[in-house]
């Protein structure tokens, strides 16, 4: 093969999109989104899962329909329609894509962030995210090895038009629920973290800033302390006063989030930005253009975080993060591998789903289910560290990923 340019002109397009997405993510934090969580595909779908299933999954503090998610899907849909890239297609191992999305999400919630938030966290100065980045690289290297062995989920086919509209339809349904909740009333069965609601004991005792106890339901506030119906003190006054806000209660205004999401959706659709594709392509086909995307994201987030005084360099006291290096590496190894096997990061799955790709939509539905399961089963981490069964779950997921890689290798008939 003749000499080939390994960095082409599209590097600047992807890099610019990354810069933009990182800047928007950091800006969203200044507008009210959680720290270093201006944009996180996993966390935001987790919050949406909390809205619908929070009463079953114990997500009182992680329940809100994130308008960014709706915006991303509708923005990408509009961009795909205008450029005539909307194509109803699917049928490439949808069940396995559901499982891969599910595993991706459970693993991401052990780390506390998806493959996009790793870079957002780094852009906020959160050095614990380095462990996540290390995990992604390891996972992608394993994924590249599997791809080189011939791993293939099979070709997607053209589908009947309505099947291309699965994810856009989900976006519209979410938009309706978000608007009804914002301007009308929350449905009885839904869970919604109160704005700036405080986590006194994460997941166990949650109070509003006004001092109303929202969890456990039968507890009351007595002299600043949370007291259960039987008189047990669940949290003393000092603990209540010093408690931090729950991520689900930290949010930018609905329209700001929606428009920011739409802008991200358009940028990602046009640029083909992918949070793992850069590392994958660099190793697999020696093409570095996509890598500019994540580099740009870190730079954009760093600059805007510094402008807004949100930049905090270090390993300690980072928002919605823990310092378990080994757990973070293992979790993101699994997430990185799952993302390679399904052909792109969770943001890309959403973009593809919005372009009419039913397989991308199924992966997103798998992520949604995985989020609810993760919290129901207590697998998601907290700032304090990993859940009791997180390592067991990661071992099981590693076996399943290995099996999928083994089953879908090429065989001679």
């Amino acid at each position: 093969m003749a000499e080939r340019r390994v960095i082409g002109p599209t590097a600047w397009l992807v890099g610019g999109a990354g810069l933009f997405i990182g800047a928007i993510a950091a800006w969203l934090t200044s507008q009210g989104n959680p720290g270093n969580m201006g944009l996180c595909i996993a966390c935001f779908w987790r919050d949406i899962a909390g809205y619908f299933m929070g009463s079953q999954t114990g997500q009182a503090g992680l329940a809100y329909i994130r308008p960014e998610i709706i915006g991303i899907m509708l923005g990408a849909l509009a961009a795909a329609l205008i450029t005539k890239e909307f194509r109803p297609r699917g049928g490439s191992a949808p069940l396995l894509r559901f499982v891969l999305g599910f595993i991706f999400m459970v693993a991401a919630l052990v780390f506390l962030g998806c493959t996009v938030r790793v870079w957002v966290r780094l852009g906020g100065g959160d050095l614990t995210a380095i462990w996540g980045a290390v995990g992604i690289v390891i996972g992608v290297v394993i994924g590249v090895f599997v791809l080189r062995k011939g791993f293939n989920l099979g070709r997607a086919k053209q589908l009947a038009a309505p099947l291309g509209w699965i994810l856009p339809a989900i976006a519209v349904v979410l938009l309706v629920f978000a608007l009804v909740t914002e301007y009308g009333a929350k449905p009885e069965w839904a869970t919604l973290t109160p704005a700036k609601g405080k986590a006194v004991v994460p997941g166990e005792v949650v109070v509003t800033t006004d001092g109303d106890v929202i969890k456990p339901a039968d507890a009351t506030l007595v002299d600043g302390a949370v007291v259960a119906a039987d008189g047990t003190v669940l949290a003393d006054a000092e603990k209540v006063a010093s408690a931090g806000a729950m991520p689900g209660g930290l949010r930018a205004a609905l329209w700001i989030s929606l428009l920011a999401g739409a802008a991200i959706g358009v940028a990602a659709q046009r640029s083909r930005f992918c949070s793992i594709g850069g590392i994958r392509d660099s190793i697999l086909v020696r093409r570095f253009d996509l890598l500019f995307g994540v580099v740009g994201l870190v730079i954009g987030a760093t600059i805007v975080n510094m402008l807004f005084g949100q930049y905090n360099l270090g390993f300690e006291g980072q928002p919605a993060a823990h310092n378990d290096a080994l757990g973070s590496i293992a979790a993101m190894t699994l997430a990185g591998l799952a993302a390679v096997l399904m052909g792109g990061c969770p943001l890309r799955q959403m973009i593809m789903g919005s372009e009419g790709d039913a397989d991308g939509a199924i992966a997103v539905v798998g992520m949604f289910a995985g989020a609810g399961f993760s919290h129901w089963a207590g697998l998601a981490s907290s700032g304090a560290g990993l859940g009791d069964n997180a390592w067991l779950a990661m071992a099981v997921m590693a076996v399943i990923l290995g099996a999928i890689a083994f089953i879908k290798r090429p065989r001679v008939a």
Partner: protein
Amino acid sequence: MKEVDVRGLSCPMPLMHTKKAIEDDPTEILVHADSGTAKANVVAFLQDAGYSVSVDQTGEEYKIKGAR
């Protein structure tokens, strides 16, 4: 002319197949793609390899022609 069909393949397989196809340096190559992402990536990849590229869109398909 070398011909490659990457229709229905998810990332990064369109690039893997294209890379393999140009290993023996064909002067002309035709890649069949059906997604915008595959099209964009294959076009950029061929241009980086020194091909002049043209794209014909016929119905649901992109015919990507590279020549040098």
